[in-house]
């Protein structure tokens, strides 16, 4: 490992860091549990993810044939994202939250290839930590590995365009990516389990209301951690 290589990675990492925590949602509670969605919805969300997944596979294959080493970098990124998700992040209440950070490296490798990594990480979360599940893999992939990262990336770019301070951009990207992931999760749950009284909208409002209590403070803390990591990486 030569030094200048490290420096190059670190430089890229500084840029990427926004995405780091972009979709980084989130606690255990953010993963939809095994068995929680009816089979029809499992298939639906799975199907929605398939094009992203296939595009990602092709994109990885393309880069890997040119630079074999990219595969190993993707691997480290995947392992890193998993480790993030397995760690407890410090929080006020003492309850734990698990940043998932599946969007990590979306800039480096393209959002599509990060979708592939995201699926693998979510699968490992289901199989090794029992977070999420096999039948709900599609729904979780969509909210955490597709929707969240894309939004975080968007927010980061917008902030950059507006010449907002970098740390604000990162904070917002991380925080909003987190919140967006949970909104999508709430939509997924409300669609599957509409209220008998008010239907989908009533149910959505309820799911959002309940998650808001637990997720907003966590989203803020995770945003802060993202800023600290970025600052630390920049000074490396």
């Amino acid at each position: 490992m030569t030094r200048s290589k490290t420096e190059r990675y670190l430089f890229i990492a500084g840029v990427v860091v926004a995405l780091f925590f972009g979709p980084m949602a989130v606690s255990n509670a953010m993963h939809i549990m095994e068995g929680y969605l009816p089979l029809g919805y499992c298939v639906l969300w799975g199907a929605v993810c398939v094009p992203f997944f296939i595009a990602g596979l092709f994109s990885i294959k393309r880069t890997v044939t040119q630079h074999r080493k990219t595969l190993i970098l993707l691997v480290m990124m995947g392992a890193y994202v998993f480790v993030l998700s397995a760690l407890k992040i410090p929080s006020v209440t003492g309850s734990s939250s698990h940043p998932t950070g599946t969007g990590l490296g979306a800039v480096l490798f393209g959002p599509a290839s990060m979708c592939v990594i995201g699926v693998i990480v979510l699968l490992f979360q289901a199989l090794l930590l029992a977070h999420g599940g096999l039948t709900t893999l599609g729904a979780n992939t969509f909210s955490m590995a597709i929707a969240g990262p894309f939004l975080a990336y968007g927010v980061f770019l917008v902030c950059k365009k507006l010449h907002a301070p970098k740390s604000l951009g990162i904070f917002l990207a991380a925080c909003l990516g987190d919140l967006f992931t949970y909104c999508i999760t709430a939509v997924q749950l409300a669609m599957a389990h509409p209220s008998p009284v008010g239907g989908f909208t009533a149910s959505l409002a309820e799911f959002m209301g309940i998650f808001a209590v637990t997720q907003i403070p966590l989203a803020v803390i995770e945003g802060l951690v993202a800023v600290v990591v970025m600052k630390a990486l920049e000074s490396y």
Partner: protein
Amino acid sequence: MERKRTIVRAEDLHYTYEDGTQALKGLDLTVQKGEKVAVMGANGSGKSTFFLHLNGILKPQKGRILIDETPIDYSRKGLLQVRKKVGIVFQNPEDQLFSASVRQEISFGILNLGVSEKEAEEKVDRVIEELGITPFAHKPTHFLSGGEKKRVSIADILVMEPELMILDEPAATLDPKHARMIDGIVDQLSGKGITVLLSTHDAERALIWADRVVLFDDGKVIGQGHPEDIFRSEELLRQTNLEKPAVLRIFDTLCEEGILDHKLRPPRRVEELMGYIREKGIKQL
């Protein structure tokens, strides 16, 4: 004329990890203030688990630990107290260093003690000076060589001015030059009156340095005493897979052959043995 104070007293420690590994099985150990203790034993014999008990990172499932003659108080405040007194330098600096800059790294612990920025800065500068870190103090930590990282990781702890310093295999993986440099730093620590507890696989080094050698096996202390005595006990050496240091082996042979006198104090260094031989040579003349 005051009686030596006990800094660590561990009584009947038991610890089993979540996965069922029994790491400590009734460990007793006492360390006096100012002592130089070498802890030896195979990997997996419980050394690292024991160290993590001494500053309350792990809590024994049975037994208790007294630091400075008071049992560890596992409340948040009590733990801060203990960690201020007991510092651990980990074996692999990669597991310890996390800051981008050397100064930032060294200041982490001292600032957490609640010391003012100004005071912290002074102490950090002093430690950087003392451990010879100045030439690379401005470099980012991840560009440092192994030996340099090791020195920074010692500075990390030393700056907090602990009363007891624990070093987990400080010289492993270093080349001879850096290993000797670290040995020098360790000697410096004891010179300052800091109690040093050090784990090592290097019997030759333990023989030279330690006041006392403690042998760990299977989560217990199976023997302790002066290094010369420990390393001449065939029984203990076999049990812990240690090799008798060359100096002692040769000394014992020379005694058996009648070239040296049995009653001589067993030598700790090659120089001592050579001194005996030279003396003998002069007598022969």
